[in-house]
Each structure stands twice: as C-alpha cells, then as structure tokens.
C-alpha cells in the first residue's frame, strides 16, 4: 500500500484513548476514545480539511500525527520521498528526520509564542534544535522565511508583544516553514483572528502551499473556512471518521447524515432569508458513554434498528468518496448549492 509515491501520509486504524481515572489509586475505570479507528491517506501536495464539532477528535488526530500524543494503536507511515518513516515506531535518527518533515501551526498566536524570545530566536529555534543551521546561515534562512510570510527583516529583533494577532500568526507560520517540512498540520489557525485578518492568513497559507507544493492537514470547526482552503474534506464525529471525499462532491452531495446536519447548521450568506437553519438534532455525544452501533444514531433522523446493532464501517461508496453509514446508498441528503450571485458587486 505504501509503495504508492503519491501518498505522503498513510494512517491506518489510528486510535488514541485517554483513560478516565477515579479514586485515590487512580484506577482506570473507562476510556475516552478521542480517536477511534481512523484510516486515511494524505496525498502529496493536497490540502485535507478535517472538520467536526468540539470533542470529535480532530485536534487529537492532528496531535497524534505530529507525535505530540503517543497513539494507543494503529499505524502511521510518512513517505517523505527519500525515506519511508514508520511514525509510530521511530528510531532516534528517523525521529530527527520526522521532526523536520512534519510541522504544526497552532490556533492561538498569543499562547504559542514565547514572550521572552524575539522573532529570530523563535523562528530560528527549529533550525537550531534540529541541527540544521547555526549562526549566519540560520539568520539568513530566518530572514528569508520571514519575508515569505509577509514580515520584514526589521522585525527579526522584536518580541511578540509588539505584533498584532495576524502578525503573530505569521511568525507561527514562519516557524513551521523554516525547516522546509513536507507536511504541515494547521489546527484552527485562523479562528482566533479578527475577521478582517482571517483572509490575509488564509490567502498566505494558500499561496505558500501552491508555491512550495506543501501538503496541509487543515483542522477547523468552520465549514466555510474548510471549503475555501481544502481539496478534500474529512468529517469526524465522536472520534470516528464518518465521511471523506473531494470537496465539491462532499459539500454538494453529502452521504452521511451528520455531514448533512453540519452543513445545514452553517449560516448562509446568500440564502439567509429563507431561515432554513432548522437544526433540532441534539448535542454532541458524551465520549465516555457512546451509544451502541453507529455513534451518530442518537442524533440521526434516519436511524433504524440496524444502526443500534451494528457499527457501520467506512467504505468507498463512489471513487474517492468514503462514508460510514449503513444506508448511504438509499438516503438522498441535502448539501450546499453554491450560488453565483456576487454580494459585494
């Protein structure tokens, strides 16, 4: 499977369980299955959007992929082009290559920068710790990447407090880019920013991706942002991957009832007058007490007896369009029809 050179990252049966501990002896009484049996492939040069509500496991998935979290089970294989790395069992040498190949951009630009480190130190640190560059060369590389993200060389000696939120996020992006990674995992990189700044950062990420043929896994709760940036979209619910498909296909013809619900809930710009946000289907699930069978069935308006008895598996319904729902063939679900009328004209 991994022989395919188009595939940059292959995830198979990934699981991350957090123990729930009780009492003085911290006995493990149950597990939170934050990511449960997720399999997907990320192609070289694509943007995979991961979307879902809070608690769906999208952040945990991202953190497992950069090895911030140790996965409970499953396999992750990264094919850098030169080397095939088994991410879940890296040797010391491989770990260094891995750290250079996969980088992360965080949500909160106020919390993710050390206030005592200036831009040169912050952005240069990955070069230093990975033993890639030092001294003059380090400074040159940092200066180059700083300009790529739209900051100026004069900014190098300044500290985070003198930058706005958008500029801080640019510093965070520069820090990720400086080691010339193959894969960038961006976890809600624009949700802490003001609306007028979001577009700047989204466009920057898009430009960098196209210019440098980067691969992104873009995690967000915001379906509109996901639509703008992604080539393919993965929808997660209660730790499971419930649908995965090409962007336009998935948005126009969703195959999983949860995707339909999620799309219906997004406020519409064009159709706001129709007031069709009729979403009355419950709350995100309690991860410690998941229902039997299909995890979504308690909120699903199409649920049958079978959904309680048998857990649906992710299967390829059409080429490249995966869904985990017993009744995916029979349901005709509503998606989003893009409108062409320009509002700002």
């Amino acid at each position, binding site marked *: 499977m991994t022989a395919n050179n188009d595939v940059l990252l292959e995830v198979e049966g990934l699981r991350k369980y957090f123990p729930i501990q009780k009492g003085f002896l911290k006995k493990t009484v149950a597990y939170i299955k934050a990511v449960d049996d997720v399999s997907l492939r990320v192609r070289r040069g694509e943007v995979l959007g991961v979307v879902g*509500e*809070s608690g769906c496991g999208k952040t945990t998935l991202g953190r497992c992929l950069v090895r911030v979290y140790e996965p409970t089970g499953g396999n992750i294989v990264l094919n850098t082009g030169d080397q095939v790395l088994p991410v879940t069992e890296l040797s010391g040498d491989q770990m260094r290559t891995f750290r250079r190949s996969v980088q992360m951009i965080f949500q909160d630009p106020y919390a993710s920068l050390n206030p005592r480190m200036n831009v040169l130190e912050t952005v240069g640190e990955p070069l230093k710790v990975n033993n890639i560059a030092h001294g003059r060369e380090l400074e040159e590389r940092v200066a180059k990447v700083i300009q790529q993200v739209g900051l100026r060389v004069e900014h190098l000696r300044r500290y985070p407090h003198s930058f*706005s939120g*958008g*500029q801080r996020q640019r510093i965070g992006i520069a820090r990720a880019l400086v080691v010339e990674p193959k894969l960038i995992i961006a976890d809600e990189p624009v949700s802490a920013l*003001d*609306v*007028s*700044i*979001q*577009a*700047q950062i*989204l*466009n920057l990420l898009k430009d960098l991706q196209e210019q440098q043929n980067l691969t992104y896994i873009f995690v967000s*709760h*915001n*379906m*509109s*942002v996901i*639509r*703008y940036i992604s080539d393919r979209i993965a929808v997660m619910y209660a730790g499971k991957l419930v649908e995965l498909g090409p962007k336009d296909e998935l*948005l126009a013809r969703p195959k999983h009832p949860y995707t339909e*619900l*999620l*799309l*219906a*809930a*997004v*406020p*519409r*710009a*064009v*159709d*706001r*007058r129709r*007031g069709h*946000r*009729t*979403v*009355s*289907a419950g*709350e*995100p699930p309690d991860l410690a007490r998941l229902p039997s069978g299909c995890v979504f069935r308690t909120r699903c308006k199409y649920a049958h007896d079978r959904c309680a008895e048998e857990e649906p598996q992710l299967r390829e319904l059409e080429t490249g369009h995966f869904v985990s729902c017993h009744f995916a063939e029979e349901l005709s679900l509503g998606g*989003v*029809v*893009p*409108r*062409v009328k*320009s*509002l*700002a004209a």
Partner: protein
Amino acid sequence: MQNTNNVLVDVQDLKVQFNLHEGTVHALEGVSFQIQQGKTLGVIGESGSGKSVTAQAIMGIIPSPPGKVTGGRVLLNLPENDASVRVVNVTELPPSGSEIRSIRGKEISMIFQEPMTSFSPVHTIGNQIMEAVRIHYPDVSKQEARDRTIEMMRRVGIPRPEERVDAYPFQFSGGMRQRAMIAMALVCHPRLVIADEPTTALDVTIEAQILELLKDLQAEFGMSIMYISHDLTVVGGVADEVMVMYLGLVMEQAATDELFDNPLHPYTEALWRSIPTIDGEMDRLTPIRGVLPSPFAVHKGCPFYSRCEKRIQGVCDQSRPPMIEARPKHWVRCFLYTESK
C-alpha cells in the same frame, strides 16, 4: 430618524473613553442609534470597534475607572403600568444606585459569550436564575420563584428542568449552559436582551439551535434584542436592522436586507469580500489590507482611512465623515456619498 413611539433604547452621540497608563482609548466617539420595541438590532464589529462597550453603556456597567462616559445619552423609554412612559437616562444614573439596579436584570438583561465563566461554579444553576426573580420581585415566594425558574428552563429547551434546576454549572454541557444563561436573562421578562457574541464559543449545530430559540422567544415575549457579533452571516440571519461599527464609530446602518444587498461603506464591502462562506462564490478572498490601528491612535479623519481602498487623500484624512442617508433609511459614514447629497 424613525417613529419614536416604538423606540425602546435611544442612544444619542455617546462618547466613552478609557484612561489607561499607556494613554487614552477613545472607545466610542459619538455613537447614535435606536432599538425598536420587539425588534432585533444586529451589531457587527471587530475587536476594538466598541460594540461591547456600547452594550456596557446601555447596561450602565462601564468599569469606572478607567472608563468614563464623556458625552451623550442613553435613553430608555420604559412603559409604565398606567400607559405612560418613563424616560431614564442611564448615563446619569450612579452605576450602583438603586434605580439602575432596578432596571438591570429586570428591564435589560445580558447574555454573554462564555457560558462557562458567567456562572458561579459553587451555586446551583437554579439558584442563580432564581436570584434575579427574588431581587426584582421581593413579594414572590421562594417556591413561586423556583416554579418560574423551572418553567423558564423548560421554555429554553433544557430537558428535565425539575431535576436539573438543582444541578451545578459543571454538570451542564456548553450548549445547555448557554440555554441556562438565556433562561437567566429572560426570567424577569426584560424589554431588552443584549446578546454579546452569545454563540461564538459554541459548535455550529448548537449555534443554530440557540439562534432559533432566541427568535422563538422573541416572538413569544416580544422583547427587543441587541445582537452583537463579529460574524456577518450570523447577524444577517437574526437581525431586522444591522449596524456596522469600526473603531468607536457607526460606519453604516440599514435594514438587514438592504445592508446585505447594497453595502455602501468601503469597510462593509471589504468585510464581505474577505470572509469565506459556505454557499458564496469560491473566488479568492480579498483581505482588508493593513492592520487594525492601535487603540490609542487618534484619528483626525475617517478611522478606516489607513486601510480603505477608496480613500480620497486630502479629504478622508482631514475631517471625520458625517453620517448621511445615502439611500432611503440607509445611513453611511463616508465621504464617497456626501457629494451626491
């Protein structure tokens, strides 16, 4: 501007500043608007636009010091039992005096963004909702207050309210806590509810439910809503009228459909082009250039001048543009429209 008979809140040329160590922030620089009875006014603005300070001024809770109302009035037209109208100027009332306290929580109430931090963790949800009833209606018995609380919790869609009235905030999910906060805001049947980013911390599916709930409750109780958000699409879905704020000024104001169909101010237009939508065009986003100016900056001309695509040098940076009615009932603060008038 409009029929004054139905006006509940009349804000006139409101000015607020904050005197900080680093300098003076002119948070509001002459804000005027009205809220009609039973209608929803949507307020759109980024951080620093003054949208939350406006809400605080109406509630009479501007933290002072450092905050200070330096000009203007906030008039509340409160109908009395005998069909007369009591006019109260909130800015003149002492912030912790008995008169404003009889209004706050009873006539005007507020729903905040963060339902986690807005409840006391050591009191039950029920007791916190009941408190408002007990304060504003001293003759109501404890049992009656509890019954009203349970009824309101049921009304906002909290399942099994007779049990959950004794639950603590940590036992509620985010969506349920926000419902509880709405119950707390509505239990005294206020005339105005100020909702300051009430759904920003929630998932989209929950957000849709909460917005629907607010609309239903408005139809039932007839209260006015001031809905504050940075999210244009959310505001477009709930508001009858929308005003767009930027750095302490109202830039544009009109009925929702009018404003969304014919945005006039360059800032409003630019905002529209810069947000990704789920059903709009998929062209490249056009970001608003530059950054938000420092809050301490003093703007001689239009505060949007430094970022505006359509600025006129020598005009826009020289004096503040006036608010003009560029189209019927559509006001905009921009020199582009002064010529034609």
